[in-house]
């Protein structure tokens, strides 16, 4: 009986500890607005989550230093879900039901975003910016869900169109990661090629965690395509490109926007010279002085919070998430409500912030960013080789 008592006391203490974390009531206070985000801050995807969070924090710090928005500072609650949807679900429930966040901004990861989008929409909590290009987020449009990143299906379409119309290629090979991102890119490419009465010359699914791609590359070489799309992430794409060059295959290679990060050039070195990438976050170039000024402003804001650090492209994503939310909150007026925020977001018409460029939302169109451009790696830098391209 004594042991039973001891056990009950310990259980009670555990539960009290859980309770102690409680900060209830509304998301909008006289002096602050509480919002939440979920990021992979530990585990294998920490490099993405840490970067994205830095971008968000840098922007919100800057806003808060200026006194916040309509007199309210932005208080960002961060939960580490390790990109595990089981954790995302409980963390998001905690944000909504206990922390009473006003909105969820910039959640990272396809599985987590898909797992909570229905819950947030049903509960009327605006979900602004997802670190994911899953087409299910934008299609069909959902009242409270605002995707920004281009989706992988759309990107597949654009890549296929670019190769056929601009580069006049007809034997397009596709190597794709054997996961949802790779599959969605392949779907997009196949659909677009079907419009041209074509299909991929050869498709090769690969395991993104393997280190040696020689058998895949031999298969590729024996098919002899005239161009190659690699739908992979940074580590595996660099490995494949390097091995292809070692085997002496010299064809144009196109890869996807998650790779458009300075680290890609840093890690890939000479091997990634000439690789073509898509991008949706503009890069500063000499022929685009307006944006160069904005990019400098971004660097300044970022380095105010993280001195002497060069932001990654994940930080840029976080920064854009924070920009879009902050602008919408400003538009929502001195007494913001969740529905007011939704209405404000739906007025975005080709809106340009600092990094965020060309963002549009309407109640029936939640595609977010639908335009992308192509760039090529030349002498260790990204050089744009096309203007903005859309499907419409």
């Amino acid at each position: 009986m004594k042991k039973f008592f001891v056990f009950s006391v310990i259980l009670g203490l555990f539960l009290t500890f859980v309770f102690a974390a409680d900060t209830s009531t509304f998301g909008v206070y006289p002096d602050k607005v509480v919002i939440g985000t979920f990021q992979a801050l530990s585990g294998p995807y920490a490099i993405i989550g840490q970067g994205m969070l830095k971008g968000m924090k840098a922007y919100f710090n800057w806003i808060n230093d200026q006194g916040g928005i309509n007199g309210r500072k932005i208080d960002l609650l961060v939960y580490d879900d390790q990109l595990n949807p089981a954790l995302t679900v409980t963390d998001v429930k905690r944000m909504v039901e206990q922390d009473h966040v006003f909105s969820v901004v910039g959640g990272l990861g396809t599985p987590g975003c898909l797992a909570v989008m229905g819950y947030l929409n049903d509960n009327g909590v605006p979900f602004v910016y997802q670190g994911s290009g899953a087409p299910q987020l934008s299609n069909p449009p959902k009242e409270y869900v605002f995707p920004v990143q281009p989706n992988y299906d759309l990107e597949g379409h654009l890549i296929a169109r670019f190769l056929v119309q601009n580069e006049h290629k007809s034997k397009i090979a596709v190597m794709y990661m054997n996961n949802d991102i790779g599959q969605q890119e392949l779907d997009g490419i196949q659909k677009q090629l079907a419009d041209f009465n074509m299909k991929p010359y050869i498709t090769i699914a690969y395991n993104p965690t393997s280190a040696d791609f020689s058998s895949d590359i031999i298969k590729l070489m024996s098919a002899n395509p005239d161009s190659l799309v690699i739908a992979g992430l940074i580590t595996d794409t660099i490995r494949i490109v390097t091995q292809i060059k070692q085997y002496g295959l010299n064809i144009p290679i196109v890869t996807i926007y998650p790779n458009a990060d300075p680290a890609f050039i840093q890690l890939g070195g000479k091997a990634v010279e000439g690789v073509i990438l898509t991008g949706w976050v503009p890069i500063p170039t000499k022929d685009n002085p307006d944006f160069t000024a904005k990019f400098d402003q971004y660097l300044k804001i970022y380095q105010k919070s993280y001195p002497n650090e060069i932001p990654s492209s994940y930080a840029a994503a976080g920064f854009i998430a924070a920009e879009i939310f902050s602008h919408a909150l400003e538009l929502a007026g001195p007494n913001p409500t969740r529905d007011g925020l939704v209405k404000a977001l739906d007025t975005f018409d080709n809106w340009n912030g600092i990094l965020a460029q060309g963002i549009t939302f309407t109640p029936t169109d939640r595609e977010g960013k639908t335009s992308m451009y192509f760039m090529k790696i030349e002498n260790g830098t990204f050089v744009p080789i096309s203007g903005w391209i859309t499907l419409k």
Partner: protein
Amino acid sequence: MKKYLWFIPFVLVPLPFLGYPFLLSIFVLIGIYTIAAIGMDVLTTWAGQISIGNAAFFAVGAYTSAILVVNFHVPFLIAFLASGLFAMIIGIVVGLPALRVSGFYLAVVTMAFGIAVQQIIGVFQITGGYNGIRNIPVPSFWIFKASPVYQYYIVLFIVFLIFIVLSRISFSKSGLALFAMRDSEIAARAFGVNSLKYKLAAFAASAALTGLAGSLYASAIGFISPSQFDLTLSLDLLAMVIVGGTGSVMGVMIGAAFFVGLPFLLSGYNISITIIQGVALIVILLFLPKGLLQIFKITDLFKKKVI
């Protein structure tokens, strides 16, 4: 009757949390992982076998249940039982050849099986491929509407049932035969124990329990995709048993709480969960070789019941 006393506090747990359904959903998850970890415990502690592919049975259960409920509108109870049954059948099919080897070899075979199932699920249309299945409804039954409180009691009831069944088996002839085989297979065979039969039974029971847990998981999270059932999950299940304390439902529950509850408690503090979990694992293995259950000093009370 005294041996069931420890369940009373768990029955009372939801009362202070009725206004905090998200906390209850943490308890629901702990319960679900407890069931899966009991499955692992049956295999390792009872039968002395090892598996680092149990995530596959978890996935089979989750997908069976989700497909039946979402695509065929089967009542949850039937889908739940079917997922256990289907996982068990697959367990037997895999166990038959796999159990001819043991130790490291068995570990590698089960690992390969786990990875294969994850890949296979990704290929089929009916499983939603790599995108998985979304909007899996939470079961509602009679006057009980879909709510975390209701889910909590369902899971608690199932854990309780499993506890009763397992404690009965552990005192039966089959239980004794299993333990004998675990301690010395040669000696057990000399006494006429059919070792393959018992190993297979343990493997099937383990698969069935893990499958049932998978079914509950699918409805609790509402979204499943192949990436959730990777090698990490298999290793976590094994670690839960070791961290909590082998051979008792209570120990396994503590292990599940450690792996599910700890990330939840720490996720808001911007400290690396993986580092804390890793350090805690090492400390526990060094100083509490019998698992966290040792802290409670009640090992003797609960351990006797099951084994």
